């Protein structure tokens, strides 16, 4: 069991954390609210959609800061990943071609589906029928193919 450290004795986060602290706090509060909400009426699988969506948005935020805007240092980025502010596995997928917009990892887990295929949200809009509205089962994604 890891030692529980007092806040005053904890090591301070790396340089630049104060800049993004507010936004991260917003995400944190949203996530807390989503956790504490009573389960919504309706299909059971939809209960987790909001959690997935917030986690995705937060990971995207960290990813953008480091890779797109180059706003945070490597040190801070690693620290954020280590402290669970972003999903390192998801970000690893975003760096691969064809997965730039991937919504969640569950949607590319072919082994978990009946026909060993990816989720419907991975299908490009061009290959879907006209005006077909989809929302995937695992995270409520409406389409995350790179060509969309």
């Amino acid at each position, binding site marked *: 069991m890891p030692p529980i450290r007092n806040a005053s004795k904890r090591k*301070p986060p790396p340089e630049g954390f104060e*800049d993004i602290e507010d936004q991260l706090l917003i995400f944190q509060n949203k996530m807390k609210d989503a956790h504490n909400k009573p389960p919504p009426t309706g299909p059971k699988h939809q209960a987790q959609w909001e959690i997935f969506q917030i986690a995705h948005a937060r990971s995207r935020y960290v990813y953008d800061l480091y890779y797109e805007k*180059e706003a945070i240092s490597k040190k801070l980025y690693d620290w954020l990943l280590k402290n669970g502010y972003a999903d390192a596995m998801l970000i690893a997928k975003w760096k691969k071609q064809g997965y730039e917009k991937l919504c969640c990892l569950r949607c590319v887990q072919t082994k978990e589906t009946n026909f060993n295929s990816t989720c419907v949200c991975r299908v490009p809009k061009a290959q879907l029928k006209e005006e077909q509205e989809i929302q995937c089962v695992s995270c409520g994604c409406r389409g995350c193919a790179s060509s969309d």
Partner: protein
Amino acid sequence: MAPTGHKYYYHAESKQSTYTRPGLPVPAPTPPQDASASFYQYSAVPNLSDPRVANAYLAQLNAQNRPAQGSHRGGRGGGDSRPRPQPVDKPRSKVAIPGCEPWILVYTRCDRRFVYNPVKNTSYWRIPEKLMAGILELDKARLREKAMSEGPDQKENDKNKEKEKEKGEDTAAAASESGSRLQSLGLEEADRDQADDSSEYEEVEVTDDEADGDEAREDDNNDDEHPSKRQRTEEPVEFSEADIAFQLQAMGEQYGLDPGEYDDGNRDEWPEGAEGVRFSEEDARALFRDLLDDFNINPYNAWEKLIEDGRIIDDPRYTVLNTMKARKEVWQDWSKDKIKEIRERRAKEEKKDPRLAYMALLHEKASPKLFWAEFKRRYRKEPAIADPHLKDKDREKWYREHVNRLKMPQATLKADLAALLKSLPPSLLNNKTRLDQLPTQLLVDMRYISLPAAVRDPLIETYIRTLGPPPDGAGGGGAGGEEEDEASRKAREAKERRERALREHERNVAEQKKRQQRSLEMGRARLREEQREIERAMQVGKEGLQSPLAALREKEKEKERDLEGGAS
């Protein structure tokens, strides 16, 4: 059913109507369809039971009274059921009528006019006889003025138009007047100009459409006074592509959109300036960046937060970019640049000592009455206490030291402060230093904060006054500041220029919209008019069979008159 109650047959495709059944071999005479021929078809006069007699009578009377009736868009006598014209008419200008003092002649936006008496607070579309002379005079004066101001070729047209207008007014006014008066008027006008061209007449004229109800009824009763009904188009009303496009445009106008914003398909026919807000890509991006700058957006925050806050959405510059994707892209670039800028600035700035805030807190709040643990608990919400860059151990040490010093006599403290001030080099502390920008080295020292500010500040001030000027070589920072000022000034100027362009553009667009609206309403009114005309044309009376003959006769007579007029 014809208005007179007779049944007749109408063939929708060939646009023919007959009184006899079309299946019968007997060739029934069809009511005429061209404009001139069916001229009198509307004049259904119930008391003149024989249509032939009635038409002959009418033709004769009208040939006498109105030589140029063909081009006259009467538009009167539609009855009470007629809808009011849609574009709300409003007074535009007024002229006092000479000779009849309280009365005013008011011109409306649709180029109609009525008289108004402000004393009695009454107004008439029908101009009373006693005002006739004054108004005629006014019109003449206006005509002369126009003729003077415009070129000779223009003059002809204008004269024509004016005359038409005048005539419309006059006929309206003189509904109950004697035929001789009308005749003289008609002759006078015939002399002035023979070339009555109805096409240009359409442009201006909206005659007394709202002739009051009793007048209209009067017209019905003695229709021989006003038999002229317009007859211009024969096509049945049906919606073509152009109509649909027109309606789309009208709807767009109602919602205040430019055609560019809903894309009506015919891009070439958009009026000038209607393609939505048209900026060069670069300008639009720059404007959006200005917007982000102006609202003090935190570049570290997420795009979703920016949109959820919704502050920037109300700004007109928000719509400069059309798509959310483009906006997000610009925001991404902007935040990237902004963060870079911030980093550079921070790198340039010397690092702020974390001790400063804590020492200030100690100076303000610490007292010998509080133990460290109590002090810490009481002020744990203060950022200086929560600051992770200072170690708790150090904070405790400094607190204890400070509290111990507070217990010392003031003389020692003063001596300590003097020693501290003396130890600072002249490059940091000199007679140019102000109290609010003392060097950090001084501020974080324990000896500086241990005296109350009321005692300490005068001491330091007097000490600074005794010091010499700053040594040379300290001017580097100032020059850099000026340079920065120059750069920021340039940026500001560029921004102002762009904003001025935006304002101008908005004004242009608004003006364009207003103009379009006006022309659209005029067009609608005309369209409605035409529709009514067509309806009227469809109602062929019992004497419709006779009308071609009557019209022909009338035409001949007209020709004769023209010849006579030319001869004289």
